[in-house]
C-alpha cells in the first residue's frame, strides 16, 4: 500500500519539481514583463524626465555614474532598457524564484496535515509573495529613478537584503514551528501562533533597521503611481507563479497517485 516500496521508481523526484518550477517561473516572468511594461514604464519615464530636468538645472552634481570616463561604461538606450533589458530581468528573476519555490514545495507537500498537493503549493507561493516581496517592500518600498542618493547605495543594499533574509528565514521557521505545534495543539491555533511569531520577528527587524528618507522634492503622485505599479509587478510575478505551479504540481501528484493505486491493485490480485 505504501508508495515508497524499495526499487519502485517514483515520479516525485526533486528534479520533477524543479522542472515545473522553472516552467512556472518562465511563464510568470513573461506576464511580469507585460505588467511592468504596461503599468510601470510610463512612471519610470516620468521619473527619468524629472531626473534629467534636475541635472539640467543643477550643473554636474556627479550623480550620473554613466558619465564617468572609466572602462566598462556603456550607455544603453531607453528603448532597449524598457523592452529587452526589462524582459531579461523579469525572466531571470521569475525562473530563479520559480525553481526555488518549487523546491520549497517539494519539501512540504505531504508534510502539512490537511493540505493536498495543490493546497500546499498555493500556500508556499502565498508565503513566498508575503515574505520575499511584500514585507521587504513595506519597509523599503521600490524607488523610481531620480530618488536615492548614489552615495548611500551600499548601505541601502545591505539593509534591503537584511530585511529580505530575516523575512524569509522567519517564514521558514514559522512553517516548521506551526507543523510542530500542530502535533500538540489544534491546527488553527498552531497556525495563528506561528503567524504572530513571524509578524513579531519582521516587525522588530523593520523597527531596528534604519529608515531611508531620500525623496527630496520628488512629486508624491509620481512616486505613488510608480510604487503601485511596482507592487502590481511583484504581485503578478508571484500570482502567476503560484497559479501555474499549483496546476503543474497538482497534475504531477494526480499521476503519481494514479500510478500508486494501479500498482496496489495489481499487487492485490
Amino acid at each position, binding site marked *: 500500500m505504501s508508495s515508497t516500496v524499495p526499487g519502485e521508481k517514483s515520479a516525485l523526484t526533486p528534479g520533477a519539481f524543479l522542472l515545473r518550477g522553472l516552467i512556472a517561473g518562465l511563464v510568470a516572468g513573461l506576464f511580469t514583463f507585460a505588467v511592468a511594461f504596461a503599468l510601470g514604464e510610463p512612471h519610470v519615464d516620468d521619473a527619468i524626465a524629472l531626473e534629467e530636468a534636475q541635472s539640467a538645472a543643477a550643473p554636474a552634481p556627479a550623480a550620473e555614474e554613466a558619465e564617468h570616463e572609466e572602462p566598462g*561604461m556603456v550607455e544603453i538606450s531607453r528603448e532597449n*532598457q524598457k523592452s529587452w533589458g526589462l524582459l531579461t530581468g523579469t525572466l531571470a528573476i521569475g525562473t530563479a524564484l520559480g525553481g526555488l519555490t518549487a523546491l520549497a514545495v517539494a519539501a512540504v507537500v505531504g508534510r502539512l496535515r490537511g493540505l493536498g498537493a495543490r493546497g500546499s503549493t498555493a500556500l508556499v507561493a502565498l508565503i513566498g509573495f508575503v515574505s520575499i516581496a511584500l514585507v521587504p517592500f513595506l519597509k523599503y518600498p521600490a524607488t523610481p529613478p531620480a530618488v536615492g542618493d548614489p552615495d548611500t*547605495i551600499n548601505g541601502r543594499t545591505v539593509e534591503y537584503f537584511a530585511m529580505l533574509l530575516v523575512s524569509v528565514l522567519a517564514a521558514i521557521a514559522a512553517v516548521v514551528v506551526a507543523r510542530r505545534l500542530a502535533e500538540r495543539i489544534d491546527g488553527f491555533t498552531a497556525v495563528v501562533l506561528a503567524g504572530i511569531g513571524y509578524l513579531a520577528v519582521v516587525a522588530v527587524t523593520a523597527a531596528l533597521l534604519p529608515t531611508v528618507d531620500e525623496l527630496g522634492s520628488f512629486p508624491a503622485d509620481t512616486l505613488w503611481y510608480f510604487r503601485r505599479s511596482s507592487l502590481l509587478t511583484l504581485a503578478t510575478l508571484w500570482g502567476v507563479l503560484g497559479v501555474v505551479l499549483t496546476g503543474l504540481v497538482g497534475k504531477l501528484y494526480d499521476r503519481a497517485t494514479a500510478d500508486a493505486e494501479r500498482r496496489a491493485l495489481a499487487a492485490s490480485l
Partner: protein
Amino acid sequence: MSQSSAAPVAPAIQLPTVPLLQLGTWVVFFGLLAMLAIFFVSADQGAISIPAGNAVHEWVHDARHLLGYPCH
C-alpha cells in the same frame, strides 16, 4: 512516515513525500545558481561590481527598479 499503524476502512489520504536528504543536494545546487541570477539582476554594479563597469546595471536597470530592488 507514509505508513499508518492502524488500517482504517477508508484510509486518510496519505500523500507521498520527497525525502529531505535527497532534496538537500538539489537545494544547495540550484540555490547557488539562483542566488547568482538574482545577484546579477538585483544588486550587481550597485554596491558590488563584478565585472567593473555599468553594462549589467544599465541592461537590467528597469527590472531592478520595478521589482523593488535598490538601484542607485
